[in-house]
């Protein structure tokens, strides 16, 4: 029983990180129709900046998360305003451009921070563990679950209960009419892209506890985000949350039960979901 609970907690905490990674990318893909392959690279930038602030400069983890989010958000905003803005409705060009940024950002991080991987880190008061059913369990993982839930509720509120969210959903369904109503979609898109990149960067610092900080995170995280988006469906916070937790839990139990088939369970889930529901579990038609 305790084996089950521990693996479940492992899965859910990993799933929360996956949710944070995928949510921004999914919304940008659904709302703006932009395939941003650099999303994982934003995560990496956030992770490195957060590491600098929280570990090297010795500030608090909260400050690190904020700094990581801001750094990634600003890089994202610059890319959107400077380049991507000219490429709406041109998926091929978006793919090439944002993939170019995976190379560029990975190499810049290697340049600035060097190639050695950083140890996982977390806030001081979250180090150590407490007991669940007679087993020690790290506090940091529980903190990740709580943090993911809070951010998830916040994002869901932003999406379903605010004017901003209404504009995004309207733009997804009918862009021309939305613009015809006098809504500045350009501005809305810039804001969405900033928020999405910000979450990616913040996730980089939060997820550092599990994934560490390395210069090859850009690609690895992109893969994870794509898997979650496939399972959960494009364009909704709920979908990313469900997909993230499902994949996280399946991965945790897969690793515990069939360690030699490490990634296989994840990909198998993805294929099964695709065969049963090609648009993902909670996907919108786009």
């Amino acid at each position, binding site marked *: 029983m305790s084996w089950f609970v521990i693996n479940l907690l492992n899965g859910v905490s990993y799933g929360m990180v996956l949710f944070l990674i995928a949510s921004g990318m999914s919304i940008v*893909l659904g709302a703006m129709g932009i*395939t941003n392959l650099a999303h994982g690279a934003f995560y990496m930038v956030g992770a490195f900046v957060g590491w600098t602030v929280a570990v090297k400069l010795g500030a608090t983890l909260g400050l690190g998360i904020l700094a990581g989010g801001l750094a990634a958000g600003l890089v994202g905003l610059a890319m959107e305003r400077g*380049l991507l803005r*000219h*490429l709406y409705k041109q*998926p*091929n*060009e978006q*793919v*090439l*451009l944002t*993939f*170019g*940024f*995976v*190379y*560029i950002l*990975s*190499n*810049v991080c*290697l*340049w600035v921070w060097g190639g050695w991987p950083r140890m996982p880190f977390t806030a001081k008061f979250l180090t150590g563990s407490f007991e669940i059913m007679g087993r020690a369990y790290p506090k940091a993982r529980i903190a990740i679950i709580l943090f993911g839930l809070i951010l998830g509720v916040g994002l869901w509120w932003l999406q379903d209960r605010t004017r901003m969210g209404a504009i995004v959903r309207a733009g997804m369904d009918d862009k021309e009419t939305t613009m015809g109503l006098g809504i500045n979609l350009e501005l809305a898109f810039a804001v969405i892209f900033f928020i999405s990149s910000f979450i990616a960067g913040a996730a980089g610092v939060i997820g550092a506890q599990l994934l560490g900080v390395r210069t090859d995170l850009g*690609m690895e995280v992109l*893969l994870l985000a*794509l*898997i979650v*988006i*496939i399972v959960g469906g*494009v364009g909704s916070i709920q979908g990313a949350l469900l997909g993230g937790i499902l994949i996280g839990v399946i991965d945790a139990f897969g690793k515990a039960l069939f360690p*030699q*088939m*490490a*990634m*296989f369970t*994840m*990909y*198998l889930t*993805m*294929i099964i979901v*695709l*065969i049963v529901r*090609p*648009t993902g579990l909670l996907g919108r038609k*786009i």
Partner: protein
Amino acid sequence: MVVANRRTDKNSIMTTVPYLAGALILAIIPLFLSRYGQGLMTRFLIFALFAMSYNVVFGYAGLLSLGHAAFFGAGGYAVALLKLHYNVDLFWITAPFGLLLATFVAALFGIVALRVTGIYFLLVTFALGQMLYSLAWNVKWLSSKGMQGITGINLPDLGIPGFSLDTTSFYYMVLICFIISCILLYRLVRSPFGLALVGIREDESRMEAVGYNVWLYKYTALVISGAFAGIAGVLFAYYNFFVSPNHLGIATSFLPMVMAIMGGLGTFLGPVIGAAVFIFVETFASIFLPQRWPLILGGLFVLTIMFAREGIGVYLWKIWEKVSHRYGIVEG
């Protein structure tokens, strides 16, 4: 009449000259190159073929696939597995086997992936490719002892007594495969079938309304494209002496996509130009700036998108048109 005839002649001169010049350069250039340079040219031809096969699906049929390495890798693994488990080197056995395996994988992928369209097609093909990647990573039979991937591949045996391939003759063998594939692919995209694919790319529902079986066209395009990617994979295994799970996964799937977009999507020779630019920039950047080559490559993608959006190939073609008009090769 006479003028009209002359014009068609000149026009065909204008289109054939770059093709012939290209073929001639490819045929004689190894004579001036070191073994390393010849290897580089071989690499370029293999990836050019891979990018061209990808272009059939992406450029002509408009299907954005992110799992094309699965077909490429299937070809490569076919060669590697025959060598590893049965010690077969004979090209006339390994190549058809690689071709068949790649075609088979493409046929399976098509059944699953063509249930969806648009961005979901990208996601599904990605998922299928990664599935093969994880299989190759986890199943012991698909690896040499104690490692991920298969080593110990030699240059192929052509079954001619007293003759064995070296770097130079292997280059010519790849060149012959490349040219044959080029001719076949050219005939394919200029055929009614190829035109129908372009029609599907431009307006799928209209093609459906006029009575085309859109699904079957897309499916056939994917399978044919997979077969050619498989040939590229067979050649690559012999070039690289090593195949790894990475050659089935997303890291390799990106390459033909990037090459095709960079060179010019939906143009016949665009992917070849894209492959040339990619391979040579990658190689030279990694020689002269080993630390910074990804930065240069990424910068190149961005510059291409911002300044030569239709692709470098199309850009070069326009320059050639201007030049040939100016010097009266073609009447403007």
